[in-house]
């Protein structure tokens, strides 16, 4: 029997680059700078590695869920099967806002790095931010796609150059490594928790590669690729943390471009250019992956009937332009506010809170689906899930709270308030607006003339049809439904 083989499928290399590339955004450099404030100098690598071990738990959760539902729609599927459709939709909407934050953050950081490299002020940085997002929006609307090999090249180049600069920093006479093994020296224990919470953010979005599950050559590549990406991120982020802590002072670490200053210390003006270029290249993955993932998700949800139909309208390049414009508008709004107020630390803390929360939700899904779908095939299983899933939920919930109640190194519940407001908005939409939207859609369809294009079946000689086309066994005729009130003209499933 003929079987299907995909002409183009993603290999392990591209899975790793996608996972690592989506996680290693420009904001990671700033998050590392912020993390060093919580741990003593050269010991900043310790919370990063601890966070990496915790993220392995999230890797296990996403690996199991992706194995059960190897599809780009996995998040909708496993959440709705684990916790009901409405709650799943609300959480998915909140999750998508992470993409807005990351895109906004990257635009702000690249704008700031460019302005710094050119010796320009805040207003030019603001212009760069708006220009970059405008460019990204236009290229998305025009249907421009980044080829897989370009994405591979970009990601591996960013990781390699960053590693090279960090290692070169160790060789400088001015490099001072202080207390590399004692993260708690002169710091309370709570600071280490904060550092780990920020450390989790460095790996954030590694799991977005699960949306490529339908494109891979081997189904196991996704779980394996995510694992390798986590290892790469742990290595590169640890090296950068040690390099920054040994060369940069507090004000430099708290700036919007610590990676550019690191480049300057290592290689002078050439280092500035190199690290500014590397920062700009990270946007290739963030803007491309972020815009495409989020806009297609919004399109699918609108086509499903859970968002107004305007969100599923396509332009002449088959791009869902309303979601793209909405994402661009939201990202620009956030980026401009951050650029004007220099409040990027709020963005980092909000992203860290959201990401830790989503890892906790993944743990809930694993736990509940083990009970609800015990017989389902699980190519990748979390070992000792009965213990590890609840433990992971608790751990990531604590980290979410820790990240949500501090900005920089001071107590500030603003990130938690922002996440709470986003959750409330999503809940209000799902509970208050969505039922009315669905009722309106059902009413509109009920008013339309009932239609079914598929012709009724013509009964065979003895009231039977041949399900195998010709030559197969004959079965009794199924009832012919001329108009199906619960079909296309009936209510849209919630």
């Amino acid at each position, binding site marked *: 029997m003929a079987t299907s083989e995909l002409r183009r499928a993603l290999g392990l290399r591209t899975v790793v680059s996608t996972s690592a590339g989506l996680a290693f955004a420009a904001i990671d450099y700033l998050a590392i700078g912020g993390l060093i404030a919580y741990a003593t100098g050269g010991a900043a690598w310790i919370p990063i590695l601890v966070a990496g071990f915790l993220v392995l738990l999230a890797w296990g959760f996403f690996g199991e869920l992706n194995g059960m539902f190897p599809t780009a729609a996995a998040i909708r599927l496993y959440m709705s099967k684990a916790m009901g459709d409405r709650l799943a939709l609300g959480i998915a909407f909140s999750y998508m806002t992470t993409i807005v934050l990351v895109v906004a953050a990257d635009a702000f950081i690249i704008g700031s790095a460019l302005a710094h490299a050119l010796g320009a002020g805040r207003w030019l940085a603001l212009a760069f931010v708006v220009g970059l997002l405008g460019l990204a929006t236009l290229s998305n609307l025009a249907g421009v796609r980044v080829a897989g090999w370009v994405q591979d090249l970009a990601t591996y180049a960013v990781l390699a150059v960053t590693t090279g600069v960090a290692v070169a920093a160790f060789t400088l006479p001015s490099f001072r490594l202080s207390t590399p093994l004692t993260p708690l020296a002169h710091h309370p224990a709570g600071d280490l928790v904060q550092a780990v919470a920020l450390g989790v953010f460095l790996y954030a979005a590694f799991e977005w590669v699960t949306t490529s599950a339908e494109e891979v050559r081997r189904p196991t590549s996704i779980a394996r690729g995510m694992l390798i990406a986590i290892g790469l991120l742990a290595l590169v982020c640890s090296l950068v943390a040690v390099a920054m802590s040994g060369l940069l002072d507090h004000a430099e670490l708290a700036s919007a471009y610590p990676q550019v200053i690191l480049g300057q210390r290592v290689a002078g003006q050439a280092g500035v250019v190199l690290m500014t270029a590397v920062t700009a290249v990270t946007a290739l993955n963030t803007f491309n992956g972020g815009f495409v993932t989020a806009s297609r998700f919004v399109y699918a949800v609108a086509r499903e009937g859970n968002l107004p139909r305007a969100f599923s309208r396509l332009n002449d390049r088959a791009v869902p332009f309303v979601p793209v414009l909405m994402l661009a508008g939201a990202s620009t709004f956030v980026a401009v506010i951050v650029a004007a107020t220099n409040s990027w630390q709020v963005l980092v803390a909000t992203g860290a809170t959201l990401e830790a929360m989503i890892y906790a939700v993944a743990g809930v899904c694993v736990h509940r689906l083990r009970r609800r779908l015990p017989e389902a095939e699980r190519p990748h299983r979390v070992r000792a899930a009965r213990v590890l899933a609840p433990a992971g939920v608790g751990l990531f919930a604590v980290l979410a709270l820790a990240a949500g109640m501090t900005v920089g190194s001071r107590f500030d519940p603003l990130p938690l308030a922002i996440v709470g407001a986003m959750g409330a908005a999503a809940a209000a939409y799902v509970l208050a607006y969505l039922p009315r939207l669905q009722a309106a859609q059902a009413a509109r369809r009920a008013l339309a003339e009932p239609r079914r294009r*598929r012709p009724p079946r013509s009964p065979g000689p003895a009231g039977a049809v041949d399900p195998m086309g010709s030559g197969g066994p004959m079965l009794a005729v199924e009832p012919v439904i001329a108009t199906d009130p619960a079909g296309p003209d009936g209510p849209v499933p919630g």
Partner: protein
Amino acid sequence: MATRDEIREALADYRVSCNSNERLRRMQRDWSKVIHLDALDVDAKFTMHVVRGEITSIDDGLSGPCDVLVRAQSEDFADMFWGDLNPVQKYLQGEIKVQGSQEDVMRLDAISSIIWPEV
């Protein structure tokens, strides 16, 4: 359960609807793909060739490598290609399974969305 002939009939109608839609042809002008359709419950497999947005042939069986593979119940295939079913709803419920790039999967749904916007 739909028969192979019913799916074939639906595909023939789908081909006419697609190829006669000017906006769809313009939108898909840069889209040339081989699509495999595999019914899970009956022996019905098809290979659809799309060249610059035009469906040029729909052949029985799965021939050569493909860009997109769609697996579904025969009833879903028949309903989908007659425009009586919203493929995204079935896809998001995990009942229609697809392999291929996200872009191609979306383009495939875009066809239904353009020729039957009311579904």
